[in-house]
């Protein structure tokens, strides 16, 4: 048969196929596509590049993607990735697994102190996290890494970072003016409609039990098991996590608690929870804080409109 395979046919033939394939699916896309920078692009500083090298050395890419898709909801999903976002990335760090969250837009999500506590031990700020501790990196490298993480999202990150820095100063000023002024400052920034709103749902044992669970899974590392703000993250965070017990008698409505938990307090380490907690969960963890730590709850108080159908 003429189809007899010779060494030449095997070696030359397969190399020829490979060459053709490389030309079409590697070289052609490389040469023919226009990868102009997108509108969020800016160059990274050398400090940020130093942080990126630490990111690569420690394999953050095996748990974190930098690749947002049209149907994503989680962190970073405010922007769908474009080719022009990656024009300075050597290597590109798209990632292939999301054991952790996408970090494309991580810059400015949190202030630096949150990242410090989180890198020292992720369970300090995120009790259920399975991310490794990076305390071994030491202060200098954690600093570089934080600068890189805070640059993710480039111009959009810069915009968010400027906001973090501004509100950080404000929050520190308020904190240093003493507890009374601080509590007042915190409440002042809650929109009036929310401030005057009582928690519309009555306190129930079942609701408190659920609130307790949420508190353990989301809040305990900062605010501490007894709500005094002395969780393990406390030494790294400034202004420190709020001591809820100082809120007693200061007209902290259910609405204020809800709003702060939902929206977070930009500039402080207090994150927003509107993405991970649905409405019922926020009311319940808020009421848990009110009942157990503030010792004062307006849950179910009048005026409250038509009772919800599920109320006991």
């Amino acid at each position, binding site marked *: 048969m003429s189809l007899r395979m010779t060494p030449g046919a095997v070696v030359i033939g397969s190399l020829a*196929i490979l060459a053709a394939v490389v030309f079409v699916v590697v070289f052609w896309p490389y040469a023919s596509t226009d990868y102009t920078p997108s509108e969020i692009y800016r160059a990274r500083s050398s400090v940020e590049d130093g942080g990126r090298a630490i990111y690569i050395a420690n394999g953050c*890419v095996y748990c974190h993607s930098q690749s947002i898709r049209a149907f994503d909801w989680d962190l970073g999903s405010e922007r769908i990735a474009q080719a022009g976002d990656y024009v300075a*990335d050597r*290597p590109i760090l798209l990632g292939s697994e999301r054991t952790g969250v996408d970090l494309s837009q991580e810059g400015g999500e949190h202030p630096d102190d949150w990242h410090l506590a989180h890198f020292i031990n992720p369970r300090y700020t995120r009790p259920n996290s399975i991310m490794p501790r990076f305390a071994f990196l030491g202060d200098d490298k954690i600093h570089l890494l934080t600068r890189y993480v805070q640059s993710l999202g480039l111009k959009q990150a810069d915009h968010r970072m400027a906001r973090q820095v501004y509100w950080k100063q404000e929050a520190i000023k308020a904190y240093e003016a003493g507890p009374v002024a601080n509590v007042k400052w915190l409440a002042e920034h809650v929109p009036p409609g929310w401030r005057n709103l009582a928690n519309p749902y009555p306190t129930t044992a079942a609701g408190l039990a659920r609130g307790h669970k949420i508190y353990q899974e989301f809040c305990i590392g900062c605010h501490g098991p007894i709500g005094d703000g002395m969780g393990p993250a406390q030494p790294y965070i400034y202004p420190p996590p709020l001591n809820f017990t100082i809120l007693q008698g200061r007209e902290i409505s259910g609405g204020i608690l809800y709003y702060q938990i939902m929206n977070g307090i930009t500039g402080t380490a207090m994150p927003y929870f509107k993405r991970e907690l649905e409405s019922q969960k926020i009311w319940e963890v808020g009421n848990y804080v009110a009942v157990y730590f503030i010792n004062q709850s307006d849950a179910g108080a009048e005026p409250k409109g038509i009772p919800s159908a599920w109320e006991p």
Partner: protein
Amino acid sequence: MSKSQFTAIQTNSTARGFCLTSAFWMVIATLAGLTAATELIAPDISGNVSWLVFGRVRPIHVNLVLFGFVTPGLLAAAFYFLPRLLRTELYSEKLGIAAVALWNVAIAAGIIALAAGHSQGREYAELIWPVDVLLVITFALLFWNLIMTVRRRQEPILYVSVWYACAAVILTGVTYCLGNVVWKPDSGALVGIPDAILLWFYGHNIFGLLLTPLSIAVAYYVIPTAIRRPLYSHTLSLIGFWSLLVVYSHIGTHHLLQVPVPTWLKVVAIVDSIAMVIPVMVFLINIWYTAKGSLGEVHADIGAKFVFTGTIMYFVVSIQGSIMALPQVQRVTHFNNWVVGHAHVGVLGFAGMIALGGLYFILPRITGKPLYSRFLADLQYWFVFLGTIGFTTVLTIVGLIQGNAWLNGEMIYRVLPELQIYYIMRAAVGLTVFVSALIGLYNIVRTLYFNPGEAA
């Protein structure tokens, strides 16, 4: 000279070297995997030790599995069967041993570098430039040895296993250089989206042009030899070979379907991922028809039993792969443990089982004595087999939980507690596979060096 005389003068030192390489690194590779799996359950277990951190252990695991365990295992068989199929001696056992030594030096150096935080940061292309260079030189030495053996052959007809082995080694030598961007020693990478396209062209071809052709080569040798029957069809061998090279090599972009790469490239990748059914089924039909009616003999030889099971896993992983290349499916399966499950069927169930089968098939023939323990080999078979099934089941469930939850708008952090029980089961399965690697190393070392068995 007759065939048996050749057998008598073969020293097989290269094949022996690769046997030991594979058995040894399988232990370390699975230990690294077990460590990583444990860290996903108890993250603080890494303490404050830099080289134990998940992000360093995971690439150590993956690289050792690919380049420490599976590839050397398959090469061991190739270096055994090539001279036999060509009715000659290996061109140079010295060169072969040099390649084995260099290979081990490269792997050890690469792993130490990864542990110390020196990585190119690109999946399957993590090893740093000096290691890349060592590995490419090794591939060149291997290819030189194989092709010179081919040139000195007494057998005019090249059997299909020879095609696959030669093509795998030369093509991987080339794609390895390209994929690791060896002309850029400091980064080993391109910039931006083209870097992703190149990376997945290369990463995909670690399976497509290295593991798969070598595994197919071993299967084409082991199954007909074990049952003493000729191959079912020469024509199917030819179609399978050329279609594999053409189709498998150009669909790497199915790893990037959700990324802004050119749409035509995605379309090509999707369509031809479906077309992968052709090379896959052509090979499988050929090998299964060859074995038809002789499964008793396959079962009687532990090497052939491993290899045959590997071919079934090839069927599973490939059909699964074609389905995973569909964009609608990938909405759920991408970015989560479903893909890790697929990877384990492919690399452990298919290529890994065939590598082990190759080892167990050639060991008695190299030493002229039966295996030290057939029982232990069988035990390893069952551990690896159940391990593959276990990984696939558990990781597929985890992947579906993650993928569907995310698609419905649940946050990654919220879903973490739901996964823990599966991560525990996964680590338990990993322990099984690690134990099987220990059993294998013991059995293989005893077979080679301290084997009380009677010469056959």
